[in-house]
């Protein structure tokens, strides 16, 4: 499978520590080209000002939550097909349904390992190709 390990990944989380944790997990799978944003508002600015290939976003954030960011991305003609992986601390049914309705590419429940994160990324990229 051809996954470009140099693709530019945007990690969105209001906790600096969690962004570091996710960056650390991505590094373990060979992804080095990672940029960060602390909430949906900052993320949207980043997405509109530089080329980002993949978004990994937390759900609960101040200013603009992950689900609001997802909806904004899907509503933007330039960004609408961007791969979007949602990170959540809970796999409660209502949350998952809401994210799927809003067009999430996949979701991952904390805690997760580098392997699981990599599998989710690969699956999303594969589906894009197919």
């Amino acid at each position: 499978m051809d996954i470009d390990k140099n693709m530019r990944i945007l990690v969105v989380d209001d906790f600096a520590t969690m962004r570091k944790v996710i960056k650390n997990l991505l590094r373990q799978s060979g992804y080095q080209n990672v940029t960060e944003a602390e909430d949906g508002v900052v993320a949207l600015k980043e997405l509109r000002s530089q080329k980002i290939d993949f978004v990994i976003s937390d759900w609960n954030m101040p200013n603009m939550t992950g689900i609001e960011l997802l909806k904004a991305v899907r509503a933007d003609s330039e960004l609408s097909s961007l791969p979007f992986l949602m990170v959540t601390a809970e796999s409660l049914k209502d949350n998952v349904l809401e994210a799927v309705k809003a067009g999430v590419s996949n979701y991952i429940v904390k805690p997760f390992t580098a392997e699981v994160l990599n599998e989710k990324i690969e699956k999303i990229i594969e589906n894009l190709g197919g």
Partner: protein
Amino acid sequence: MDVRFINPFLEATMDVLKTMAFVEPRPGKPYLKKDDLAKGDVSGIIGFTGAAAGSMALSFSSECILKIVSNMLGEEIKEINGDIKDAVGEITNMVSGAARKKLESLGLSISAAIPTVVAGKGHSVSHVMGGPSIIIPFETDHGAFVADVCMGGVK
């Protein structure tokens, strides 16, 4: 306190630390806590409402949390700083999410608030329900920590 609440929190705590921090906690025998002194140097506390209400605290010794967060971040951290407090908040959140998922499968739908983190020797952990709470002690190769759970009011 209803003993059905012990296992979901015990299992969730072990899952989160194994997965995110590569630490294998060994649980000890749970006991009733009667004072409100924290058992560790850094504590994350989170409140719950819904089918059952209450709160949970995770209280870590310095040595233990330094190792846990160093593993999570892939870099060595030597003192209790902002990164440690952030991480304790995240760990508390993740344990809460995992435990609530387990409780949901028992038919108990519970919402969580945002965690608070307190650091310093001899700080106190007060539960909204007023206690007593159940302490689940854990040992790791790098020191001890406890889960301090106070839940009640099942409808």
